[in-house]
């Protein structure tokens, strides 16, 4: 039932008709990548895309390659954000204002939904649940929590901005676009309660003189995220710009 134009795995040929591709994806969208994996289970190329746990280092996870690799990359970041906000709301810092609680609870919900979405979309191609190291974060400190939230949201925006061009599937690009703007809304909200500078919501630290937000490479993002992730992440097979 899957035609080659519907393959949301980065193997689709770039020159093919994108309208057909999109229609096929929408039609069979509910089958998602898991189904694509089944259909292509005999395909050697696809098997190579599926992340395998390296035998010698069980604590290392490979993100894989192609569009699946990029989805796993996004899944990594969403897992990180979701785990962080779950912890934040489990042990709210003293003096958390009502407004801060509303924002942080929403952020928790959004990031958990993103995480669960990627898990479902990726199915058996997904990386496992990661282990995090939040020892550097003082969850009882407003400053520590909000500055970490700001870091994570900025990192998320820059990661999605940088990875958009690495996706082959227009449907997955649209999904990433739907998520990244919500991350940018988060970043602005956190900064508007945390920073005293009224321009911090879209500050010169993350937006350049052309009015462009940050876009970071997978390598840079993974290196930044690594400080918070116990599991070693191997992104070496990810597509490159």
């Amino acid at each position, binding site marked *: 039932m899957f035609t080659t134009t519907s393959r949301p795995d980065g193997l689709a040929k770039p020159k093919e008709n994108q309208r057909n591709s999109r229609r096929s994806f929408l039609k069979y969208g509910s089958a*998602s990548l898991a189904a694509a994996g089944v259909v292509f289970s005999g395909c050697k190329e696809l098997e190579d895309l599926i992340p395998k746990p390296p035998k010698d280092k069980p604590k290392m996870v490979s993100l894989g390659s192609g569009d699946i690799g990029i989805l796993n990359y996004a899944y990594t970041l969403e897992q990180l954000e979701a785990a962080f906000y779950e912890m934040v709301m489990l042990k709210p810092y003293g003096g958390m204002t009502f407004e801060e609680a509303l924002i942080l609870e929403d952020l928790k919900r959004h990031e958990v939904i993103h995480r669960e979405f990627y898990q479902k979309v990726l199915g058996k191609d997904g990386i496992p649940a990661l282990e995090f190291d939040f020892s550097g974060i003082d969850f009882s400190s407003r400053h520590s929590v909000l500055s970490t939230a700001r870091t994570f949201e900025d990192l998320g925006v820059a990661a999605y901005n940088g990875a958009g061009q690495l996706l082959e599937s227009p449907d997955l690009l649209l999904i990433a676009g739907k998520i990244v703007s*919500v991350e940018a809304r988060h970043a602005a909200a956190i900064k508007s309660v945390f920073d005293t500078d*009224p321009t911090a919501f879209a500050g010169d630290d993350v937006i350049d003189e052309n009015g*462009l937000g940050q876009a970071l490479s997978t390598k840079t993002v993974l290196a930044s995220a690594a400080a918070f992730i116990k599991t070693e992440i191997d992104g070496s097979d990810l597509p490159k710009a």
Partner: protein
Amino acid sequence: MTIFNLLDRISANLPDTQQATSRRALFTSVADLGKKMAVAAVPIGAATTVYSPKAFAQENSVIDVLNFALLLEYLESEYYIKGLDSGVIPSGSDEEKVFMQISKHESAHVEFLKAAISGSGGDPIDKPEFDFSARGNFWPFHKYKDFLVLSQAFEDTGVRAYKGQAANLIGNDAVLTAALQIHSVEASHASKVRRIRGLKGWITEDERGDGMPAATQAVYDGEDQLVQAGIDLTSLTAFGADSATESYDEPLTKEEVTAIASLFLV
């Protein structure tokens, strides 16, 4: 590097190339373009080069997308310039600083897009004449409330507009990435303006939010999607439909955006 060399390099690297290295080169060029244009101040239409017919179709559509984006940025940049000039924003307030920052970005987007269009061999559209009253329905430069209403509508529209065009830029990595970089900036603006207006920074269901007149509903129609990539988001967690719809922003088509923008065209 002179501006002419830069443009030649960009033109030479346009879409039919499949080489990752030249895409990277193009990106670097486009990213620097706005700044370099401003410095060089050369009439750039003359510097465009000839394309292979093969490249033309795709390139043409990229230019169309960029010109479409330019229309929105013209609208936003003129809106904030006029708003800041009008005195409608409380002078010396934090909110004035917010709108100065937003205005700076929108004006930069105009210059960047004009440069990117010229650099890609196209002609940037001229700035149209705007009627920000939408034929007498809003008084944004006299009533601060109206100014905030339209600001929210423009920013939330901008987010949806860029999102809707991203797929049309696949294959032109430099332009796609730049469009995504503008897209996220529009989203930070939208969040801030919404919060100034007392709303959440994100969009719940397809609600335009308290104080937004019904005339702005087209900006929010269709934001209440519960299914993404065939997955019902409400089946994933116990958080319910409001959180599910807040977690994803939805695109608008070019036609839908044009219909919104045309309310403000003379």
